[in-house]
């Protein structure tokens, strides 16, 4: 996505506004209040995005769905980042048997389709938010670890790291104070893209009935729940779909922006690892 010539920052502001304004409004409304009398009401002043088959306010469910989807995705990306950078640095810096084992585990995990792995994990575990976070973090950390490991292996031989050892810094200090700050910046673009993908995957799992379970407001689950009413109430499917799309688009553009900043050389690493 480096081929982006759109005026990315202004575009991001516009898209972000479209996403966040309804969310901000919807958070003041009730996402779970069931009122069967209001079932399948079309968009109107009382229900700007309509009401679903339980008479629940779709605007409120979109807003709380945003909290769930984005909150979970941020958690998953943060956990993947921490795990990936931690393991990757340790592997790259320590080398030896640990690095060998890490390489094998990473090769095994990249060779499996991530969504398939997550689907299988979700099907066999209690389908709550914790399980979902674990199921998507498990394959998610690998791309960070690959990059971090490569950078750490290069940094290990860097003069300034050698000098830290000469002046007596311990391995933990070297890792945290000197390696991490030098490994993280190129990962920002990757993380932005990962965040978008994670929302997409959370929603896809929800759509397959394997993600967060109803009545939790979650965008993919909302699309699944709306399928039977595609005719009478198409807005039920269209609205959450648009929000997933919007979210993913924002982070794709952001990733492009961050990647362009991170520079040409590191871009190639990111593609190879992704």
């Amino acid at each position, binding site marked *: *996505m*480096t*081929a*982006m*010539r*759109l005026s990315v920052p202004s575009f991001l502001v516009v898209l972000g506004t479209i996403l966040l304004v309804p969310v901000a409004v919807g958070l003041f409304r009730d996402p779970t209040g069931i009122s069967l009398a209001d079932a399948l009401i079309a968009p109107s002043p009382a229900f700007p995005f309509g009401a679903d088959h339980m008479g629940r306010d779709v605007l409120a469910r979109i807003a709380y769905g945003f909290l769930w989807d984005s909150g979970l995705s941020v958690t998953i990306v943060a956990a993947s980042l921490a795990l990936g950078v931690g393991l990757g640095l340790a592997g790259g810096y320590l080398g030896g048997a640990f690095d060998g084992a890490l*390489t*094998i585990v*990473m*090769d*095994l995990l*990249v*060779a*499996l*389709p*991530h*969504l*398939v792995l997550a*689907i*299988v*994990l979700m*099907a*066999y*575990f*209690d389908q709550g938010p914790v399980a979902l976070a674990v199921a998507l973090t498990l394959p998610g950390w690998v791309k960070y670890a*690959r990059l971090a490991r490569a950078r750490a292996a290069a940094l290990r031989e860097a003069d300034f790291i050698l000098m830290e050892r000469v002046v007596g810094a311990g391995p933990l200090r070297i890792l945290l104070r000197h390696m991490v700050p030098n490994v993280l910046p190129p990962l920002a673009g990757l993380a932005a893209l990962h965040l*978008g993908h994670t929302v*997409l*995957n959370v*929603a*896809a799992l929800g*759509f*397959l*009935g*394997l993600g967060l379970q109803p009545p939790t407001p979650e965008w*993919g689950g909302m*699309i699944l729940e709306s*399928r039977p009413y*595609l005719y009478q109430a*198409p807005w039920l*499917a269209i609205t959450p*779909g648009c929000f*997933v*799309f919007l979210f*993913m*688009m924002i982070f*794709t*553009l952001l990733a*492009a922006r961050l990647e362009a900043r991170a520079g040409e050389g590191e*871009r190639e690493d990111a*593609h190879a690892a992704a």
Partner: protein
Amino acid sequence: MTIALFLFRRLGMAAATVVFATALTFVLTHLAPGDAAEIILSRVFIGDPETAGARSDLAVVATRFGLDNPLALQYLEWARNAVHGDFGVSIASGMPVADEIAERLGPTAVLALASTVAALAVTAGLVAAVRLVPRTRLAVDAAAVASVSIPNFYLGLVLVLVFSLGLDLLPVSGAGSWRHYVLPAAVLALGQFGYFTALMNASLRDADGQLYVLTARAKGLPPHEVFRRHVLRNAIVPVVPYVALQVAFLFGGVVVIERLFSLPGLGGYLVDALDVRNAPALLAAIAVVAVFVSVANLTGDLLLYALDPRVRFSGRG
């Protein structure tokens, strides 16, 4: 590194992947809440998941399916049979899993190939447009962003509404003729071309800056000649291996799309197996997916190896 050594390592890794994937799934299916014998008893024999069976029948089922053996032994037994092409009997249908899987390979292969080819064709068109038609860059970039951003299950719903019901052009679901593949393949292709376009554009830009391209320009060759003879050829080469490596990603999409369109392929089989806790079918499907992806990764690696000399020395991990 020699090619033999490279192949040896990659094949070893592929085998390890298949073992890892199936062993993990095997353990998961056994750790899952709900007694395996109970599930088989009520779903296979009684045919009604809510109707509990008699205690005495549980023992019969456990013995017949070897469920009272230690877990490792059960896995080894499964693997031994799987190597001989015997994947056991499906809990959902009672039919041999191997037969069911064999029937479902075709639709998935057609879907994967058709969508990849279509995505590449769209990519080629867009890349050419950017080069040959002025002021299309913005539109192409926007299309690429939209492509990678749209949820495929959502796109599928919209396309069915428009093309099956609105315009009455294509079937809603099922298999049986080429027309059943048009919408699913289109959804997957529309989700993939953005990735290919971005990759291709980046690769083209790199090729643009190469010395021989500048030389060709300096010689006074017309721009489209330069593009065709020097830029394009050198830009395609690095992209080709990534197309093969894309298969793992594609499989995620196949699972969702086959479900959406009731297409009797491997991905739909996998999700159906999960729905009813059909462990034998799930294991076989996972094994086949792992083999598929491993072969694709291997192909991608070999292409990279053949096309990019640097890889020969690093071995890519």
